[in-house]
């Protein structure tokens, strides 16, 4: 079990890129950033970085604000 934007998912072992596709984000999309357990995962690592059991993934994109 991992947490993707706060929701539990049975996706331990998936890469960041795979999770983004499941969120409907095209690979390498501009305006997207990812953190795992509160640390930034650079874009260059999205294909290789696998999400481990219990980790919290925050997948963010541009939103109107301030």
């Amino acid at each position: 079990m991992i947490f993707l934007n706060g929701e539990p998912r049975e996706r331990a072992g998936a890469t960041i890129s795979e999770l983004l596709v499941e969120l409907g984000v095209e690979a390498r999309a501009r305006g997207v950033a990812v953190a795992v357990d509160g640390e930034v995962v650079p874009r260059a690592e999205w294909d290789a970085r696998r999400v481990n059991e219990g980790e919290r993934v925050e997948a963010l994109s541009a939103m109107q604000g301030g």
Partner: protein
Amino acid sequence: MSTEQIPVTDTPFEVAGRTLRSRLILGTGGFKRLETLAEAIRATRAELVTIALRRIDPQARGSLTDVLDECGVELLPNTAGCFTARDAVVTARLAREAFGTDWVKLEVIGDDRTLLPDAPELLLAAEELVADGFTVLPYTNDAPILARRLEDVGCAAVMPLGSPIGSGMGIRNPYNISLIVERANVPVILDAGVGTASDAALAMELGCDGVLCASAIARAHDPVAMAHAIRAAVEAGRLARGAGRIPRRLHAEASTPDEGLADLTPPVR
């Protein structure tokens, strides 16, 4: 004199070595439709607009970044919603990843009710982000000493509030804004509190280098008309500041000379 000529006669507005033609920075929050946002951007002639990062919404319609790209504006990511220096620093780093800019509008707020900056956390975050190579534009209290401390740790500008975010209460302490302006060696950008055009004009008359405005435009009954109004107000206030206002006096001073005043006394019979 047309407003188009103003930038020619004025000194350029420079932040961290970048020259901005417009002294009005637009916040993108609060616009109900992306089309209205795009029209408002054109009306303000803003070159720099703020943007936030939030969880990806698979249901989201229309791409904000596409709209902003079409408008030809530069992005100024914010750290809105962060309550700690750590959260703000990580958010700034995420924004750098997402948007490829090291500019950040740094917000570290103290509570939900006032959305006022948390000074110690703000200063901590500013210091860390400057060390990490960011161009930091902090949203700060209207506190002259805090503004000085932010400048001292290397912020590229200081952005004091006129009043709380979204309150539309204008500039509650113009005296403090003047004190900040008087001493600052970096641009001072009034951020938050503008409710209508006169507030933006006052900010510029007090000597601010620019104004950042979101809610006053986005939540106006007619956002595009208000965008025009506030753009004109920023230019008017800037002109007035340069022109030098007359001193305030307690009593009247006639503008028509007394010399040569006709004697209209009727003859005594």
